[in-house]
């Protein structure tokens, strides 16, 4: 009899226990970044190692895993992470949002509303929302301890003073449970409202920065703003060229070498499902559609 070369879902049991303890504390203190002993994974930091460690600590043989990268199921990062867990945990994978029990994501929240019982695992490059304003960890930690977030409001105010509006379009800071300011990871600000009182459990893993944090279901997640400059989620003023959707987040894609451009849904599953249901956009039938959803 030969023993497998690694434990279920790759990580050893002691590592999983350490991550699981961090996850439970993260859930108990929504938005607070719990330090954890991030391990080396068989891919480089920056490719989703934090999200993968969270997924590995959570996933079981009955789970159905979906992995998206900027909304797409078919990009290199998403495909390789999906394959990694199919290989190491033997789980079923899917591209359908509604079928998945765990969705690991890089920089998007699916358009299809999440349901109770689903877990959304975010890959996070920089978990500290104050880091660009204050490089010292000792100082940012003190600011979170005292709920001293004036610096962040000054940054948003300076944006308004210089540009007439808050110019952040992604990784837009949020206040969680009325207490902790949190980086939502580089999701577009368009996705921020989906975090607010979501029925799904949201877990965040930052591998290089060694932090885990969480937002439990039905928890207040409010994008920071001012009374006279309310939060406005940003999206391109266009409709999806393939499915015609106007309510989704759109990617602008260069389609030829003559400057031709096309706006398409960033969420490939949502777009493919809409096309299957008969919705057609202005560029329906474009070659772009052929490579998706397969």
């Amino acid at each position: 009899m030969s023993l497998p070369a690694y434990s279920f879902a790759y990580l050893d049991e002691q590592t999983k226990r350490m991550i699981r303890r961090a996850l439970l504390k993260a859930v108990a203190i929504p938005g607070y970044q719990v330090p954890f002993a991030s391990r080396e994974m068989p891919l480089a930091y920056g490719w989703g190692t934090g999200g993968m460690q969270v997924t590995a600590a959570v996933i079981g043989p009955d789970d159905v895993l979906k992995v998206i990268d900027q909304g797409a199921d078919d990009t290199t990062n998403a495909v390789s992470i999906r394959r990694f867990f199919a290989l190491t945990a033997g789980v079923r994978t899917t591209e359908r949002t509604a079928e998945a029990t765990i969705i690991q994501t890089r920089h998007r929240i699916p358009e299809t509303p999440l349901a109770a019982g689903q877990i959304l695992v975010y890959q996070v490059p920089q978990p500290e929302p104050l880091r660009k304003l204050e490089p010292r960890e000792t100082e940012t930690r003190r600011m979170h301890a005292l709920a001293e977030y004036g610096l962040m409001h000054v940054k948003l105010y300076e944006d308004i003073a210089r540009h007439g509006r808050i110019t952040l379009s992604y990784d837009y800071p949020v206040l969680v449970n009325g207490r902790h300011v949190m980086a939502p990871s580089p999701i577009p600000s368009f996705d921020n409202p989906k975090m607010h009182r979501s029925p799904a459990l949201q877990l965040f893993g930052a591998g290089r920065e060694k932090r885990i944090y969480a937002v439990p279901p039905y928890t207040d997640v409010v994008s920071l703003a001012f009374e006279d400059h309310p939060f406005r989620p940003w999206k391109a003023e266009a409709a999806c060229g393939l499915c015609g959707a106007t309510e989704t987040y759109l990617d602008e894609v260069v389609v030829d070498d003559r400057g031709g451009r096309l706006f398409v849904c960033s969420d490939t599953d949502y777009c493919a499902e809409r096309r299957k249901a008969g919705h057609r956009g202005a560029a329906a039938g474009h070659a772009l559609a052929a490579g998706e959803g397969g």
Partner: protein
Amino acid sequence: MSALAPGFADPPLAAQACFRRLLEAMARPGTVVTLAPPPAPPPLAPAAGAVALTLCDADTPVWLDAALAVPAVLDWLRFHAGCRIVAAPEEAAFAFAADPAVPFDRFQVGSDEYPDRSATVVLQIDAFGAGAALRLEGPGIERAAGLHVRGLPSCFVAWRAANRALYPRGVDVVLVAGRALAALPRSTDVTEG
């Protein structure tokens, strides 16, 4: 020497299944989940044994109250979890209690900078679904949740209010009865009724 009771039959899968239900319970306070626990030695409740084998190891000092600190339980935890048993509640990362006189005020609540460095208290009660009614509000709960518990220490609700006032510091509580478990993270407001 008496034979040691076994732990999880298949540790990776059993610990994963237990953790997922614990995560569900912690993320949705008031939800009672049922575990597939290992045969923990009495008086340690099976669900408490499952939590110990899922989360405790050499990195987590464990405190047991007088009711649970019997040789059968100590040997079982030391062998299967490999955890250090500490005498003082102040040193514990995980505390297991069956006696109603729980030294709530002596557990670690973490610091303002590191509120995660706090104890998780696993409290054995008689049963869920009967006894005193608790009303729960907070993260993880859509509006309000009800939880019926029998055998809760009489000072529990008053202590929870004091614990809630420390937020984001505070102690997280896991209630267990038999194979069932519910969690009350520090963020949950607990009132009677």
